[in-house]
């Protein structure tokens, strides 16, 4: 048993090293030259007012640009309620009810 833990420990340390090297390669958080700051967010910031007519840019993205996403989010809510009702709801027909 003791002998088997050593190779596993070695593999785990190797994986941790790889992850840490990848993290060290990341650009600093919030810099203007990051790949995150691409034309997508610029497009939202510059065009959201004209394209949606909405002041709140979050709402513009959630309910207009990403409207499909929000629609299926509501379906996720529906499914959650459905699962809870199926699991917990007791039928009042059998057993006499209240």
């Amino acid at each position, binding site marked *: 048993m003791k002998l088997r833990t050593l190779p596993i420990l070695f593999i785990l340390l190797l994986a941790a090293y790889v992850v840490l090297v990848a993290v060290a390669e990341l650009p600093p958080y919030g810099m203007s030259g990051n790949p995150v700051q691409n034309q997508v967010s610029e497009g939202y910031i510059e065009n959201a007012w004209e394209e949606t007519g909405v002041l*709140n840019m979050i709402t*513009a993205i959630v*309910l207009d640009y990403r409207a499909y996403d929000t629609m299926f989010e509501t379906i996720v809510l529906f499914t959650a309620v459905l699962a809870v009702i199926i699991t917990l709801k007791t039928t009042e027909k059998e057993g006499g009810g209240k």
Partner: protein
Amino acid sequence: MRDFILKRVAALLLPFIQMYGLYVILHGHVSPGGSFAGGIVVGLAFIAFTTIYGLERGRAKVPEKVTTLVESYGTLWYGMMGMVGVFKGAPFLANKMAGIDLGELGALSSGGLIGLIGLGVGIRVASTMITLFFTMMEEEP
């Protein structure tokens, strides 16, 4: 559950909490907030009412028929708003592309379909919270 002070304070506060939730839902597109947050506020007002005044009176405020209807037709309302774009010859869930008047920037009526969709989502989220809570409360002993 039988606390006098708690009941009086809730009776004073809960109407304002509900009004605030409806305000957040309706003004989701012109002010910070949104339909999800406002729906949670409205739902939690009903949940607070039920925890303070008991399940019977809470159920009287929101009958099961109402929550069932809202649960079923909330998502369908979203789909109907999306079909407006299709009937106008634009993609599904299109807003400006469908030629809907976006109105004045910052007004309550601005944004075309966004306000209507937000209202639907807000009521939907409130109904989800209420239904989850009631279903878990109503567990038969």
